[in-house]
């Protein structure tokens, strides 16, 4: 049993402070040889920071890291590799234009008598390393000729070629399909049997229960606990990650979100049938009716954001059909979605949302303006009027309409984004994590806005990791797990079903269909 052997890696009371954030607050962690240890937690839990401190990307502020009983303090990833800690990052750090063998042994190519690279030995060593992983491929070929899954194997091979004692896999499966995941797990099992200690970071619950021996959960930079996988119920794991007990009573609902009558009479605003995108989200069916607030729940990486992106046309679907207002659409794009009255507040508002260089006014009128012909510009007076109205309505705190949006706080940027879409008077608004990173007051305002929109007949698709908010705001919640829609909680259609509350959602996120 791994728990009986002496730990190979011991972290004690690790602390790391970033400006404004205490990223790691006294974290303890133990890893034994021959175990797969899952490291879990939601965004901001401290997983990445822990790995980065461990591999020497960041220095630690205080605490102790022991490898084989020796205190270590690597100052760079290569120093950590030298000590026997190898990491395979999510974005594989390999060089596509070099051969597989060169990638595996880069920086430590065997040399011959005159100091030139000994290619024969190089290829031999690379092949041996891959054979150890049960992978057979031509190591002379360019890495670019192989799939991401193979690149992952090559990255692992690079890691273990250094006689690694500890192998850290940071979300290795997030871009792999089912078959490739199985192959990776075979490799992981093989390494575990050889006595390798593996840290496995992932968001996929099913995979954790398939492969890992122990689970450590972090939350907000603190250690929640470490459990043998067999002794930790899925529901408990989700509770630990999200940081709350399944509540006994559901919280007070905001507004009257239930929409029984219109749903029978009205046509759906959007109707997705078998809509999906390879490598992003499995085909799903989803209908959204006017005035309905539909929640999308699921852990990070469960595919909840991808559903929103597909419906808005920001990502193109590879399978299935989408009907908007009763008409099937082809070549779906944001342009067409906006014309059809669909709005989208993205998860990453800095990347896909606000345009930081432009002013509050310009950001607000942008979608409205792009929908009009360039020769029918909104007059400056009209622009000011619209911007002023939404600044007042949403309580956007800005010194003037000409203030650069990049200088506003996160909550106010989010409100500017909302204003942009409200100005369009949409029929469906997709809100992806609208309350992330904003203060409590702004959050309550946005929730009230959702209720108002719903009352006015606007359909809302609310994507959130805050289950409490979903339970409070939504008339129906659709649950995703591992890139699949696995269940829906719909009190209005299923009378026998329990009320829509946090515990029900949490159970669905955690469990198989049981």
């Amino acid at each position: 049993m791994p728990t009986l052997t002496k730990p190979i890696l011991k972290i004690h009371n690790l602390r790391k402070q970033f400006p404004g954030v205490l990223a790691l607050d006294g974290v303890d962690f133990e890893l034994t040889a021959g175990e797969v240890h899952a490291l879990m937690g939601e965004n901001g839990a401290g997983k990445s920071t822990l790995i980065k401190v461990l591999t020497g990307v960041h220095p630690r502020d205080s605490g102790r890291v022991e490898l084989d009983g020796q205190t270590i303090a690597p100052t760079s990833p290569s120093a950590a590799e030298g000590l026997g800690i190898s990491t395979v990052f999510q974005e594989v750090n390999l060089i596509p234009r070099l051969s597989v063998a060169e990638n595996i042994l880069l920086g430590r190519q065997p040399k011959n008598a005159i100091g030139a690279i000994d290619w024969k030995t190089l290829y031999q060593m690379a092949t041996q390393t891959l054979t150890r992983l049960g992978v057979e491929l031509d190591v002379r070929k360019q890495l670019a000729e192989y799939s991401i899954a193979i690149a992952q194997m090559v990255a692992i091979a690079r890691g273990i070629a250094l006689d690694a004692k500890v192998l850290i896999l940071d979300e290795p499966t997030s871009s792999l399909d089912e078959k490739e995941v199985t192959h990776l797990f075979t490799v992981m099992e093989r390494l575990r049997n050889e006595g390798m200690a593996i840290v496995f970071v992932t968001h996929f619950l099913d995979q954790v229960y398939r492969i890992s021996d122990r689970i450590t959960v972090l939350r907000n930079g603190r250690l929640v606990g470490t459990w043998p996988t067999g002794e930790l119920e899925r529901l408990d794991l989700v509770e630990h990650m999200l940081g709350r007990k399944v509540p006994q009573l559901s919280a007070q609902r905001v507004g009257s979100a239930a929409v029984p009558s219109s749903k029978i009479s009205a046509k759906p605003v959007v109707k997705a049938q078998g809509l999906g995108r390879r490598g992003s989200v499995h085909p799903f069916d989803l209908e959204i009716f006017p005035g309905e607030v539909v929640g999308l729940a699921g852990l990070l990486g469960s595919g909840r954001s991808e559903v929103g992106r597909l419906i808005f046309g920001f990502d193109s679907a590879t399978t299935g059909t989408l009907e908007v207002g009763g008409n099937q659409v082809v070549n779906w794009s944001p342009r067409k979605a906006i014309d059809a009255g669909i709005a989208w507040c993205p998860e990453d508002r800095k990347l896909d949302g606000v345009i930081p260089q432009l002013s509050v006014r310009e950001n607000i009128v942008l979608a409205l303006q792009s929908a009009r012909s360039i020769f029918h510009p909104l007059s400056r007076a009209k622009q000011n009027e619209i911007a002023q109205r939404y600044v007042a309505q949403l309580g956007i705190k800005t010194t003037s309409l000409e203030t650069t949006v990049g200088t506003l706080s996160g909550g106010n940027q989010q409100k500017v984004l909302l204003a942009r879409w409200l100005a369009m008077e949409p029929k469906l608004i997709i809100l992806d994590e609208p309350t992330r990173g904003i203060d409590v007051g702004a959050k309550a305002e946005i929730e009230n806005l959702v209720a108002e929109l719903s009352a006015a007949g606007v359909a809302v698709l609310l994507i959130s990791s805050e289950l409490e908010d979903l339970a409070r705001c939504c008339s129906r919640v659709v649950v995703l797990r591992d890139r699949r829609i696995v269940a829906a909680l719909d009190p209005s259609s299923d009378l026998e079903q329990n009320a829509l509350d946090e515990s029900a959602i949490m159970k669905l996120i955690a469990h198989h269909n049981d």
Partner: protein
Amino acid sequence: MTQDVNLKKNRLGWQPPPAFYALLGLAALLLVNWFCIPSFFEIQVRDGNFYGSLIDVFNRGAIGVLLAIGMTLVVATGGVDLSVGSVVAICGAVVAIVLTTTQFGIVVAIAAGLLAAVGAGAVNGILITWLRIEPIIATLVLMVSGRGIAKYIAGEQTVAVPPELASPTLDFLGNGHFLGLPFPITIAAVLFVVTLLVVRRTSVGLLVESVGANPSASRACGINDTVVKLTVYVFAGFCAGLAGIIDLANIGIADPTNAGALSELDAIFAVLVGGTALTGGRFSLTGAVIGALLLQTLMTTLYTWGVPSDVAPVPKAIVILLVCLLQSPTLRSWLERTLRGNRKMGSRQVEASS
């Protein structure tokens, strides 16, 4: 953290307008001239027309201004157009050849030249938007091949337009006077004002800035970035065409080897010194025009001083470097820190001695 980057503000709490440093440079240069070459500011009136170094700056600067105006919008989308100098040559060659070898006349010749220039811009735009080639590579192709195309059109030689064919229209475009000022000034001024009105009074400017500042978010707003980018490259081609016609009209010779040579680099400099970042987003047409005039003032000054034209690029490079240093936030904050540090050290010494 990342979101604080945008919060960085000038310590004085004052953000200079984009054209500020170009104006500063221009003012400094004029000040030097004020003391060193008083005749620089003399303006004479002959036959109701104005003459003098300042008028010369505007007249000869017209080509640079035209190119800078087109380049500004390209740079604002996050791109660059290296081919405008070659397009100047192509347009000049087309006009000269149509004029000297056919009977269609000056209007058709000019139309053909502009069409060729716009076509060249469209080729750039298509390479960049549809085939997703990096702007610097896509336009480099035409920069290099464009000279060859111009030579091919001109029959591998310079094409002189005989005076009887050139006058009165073509000659007027290059050397005529309107309101007492050389006509190229009018062309550049009209293009500037019209462009300014179009980009700021319609939504074009907003769309261009939005695509340049955040292409992904622009797409999410329903902006067709393909159309926006295609348009700015076509417009840059059109501006280069106008410049090519003025260049031809000025000297009456289409010179495929030297027409517009290296002018694309001057245009890029004018845009950057005018306060438009090479990374795209906010742009300043006024700043670019001032930048172009700054360069021309510099060249005229150097010639007035009798600096040979072969050597002139060296002082020109020095002035460009100085203006760029003025704009560098790193250097400015370093200067500020150094000055402040010295002051602190000074005060400490005072304390110690007391």
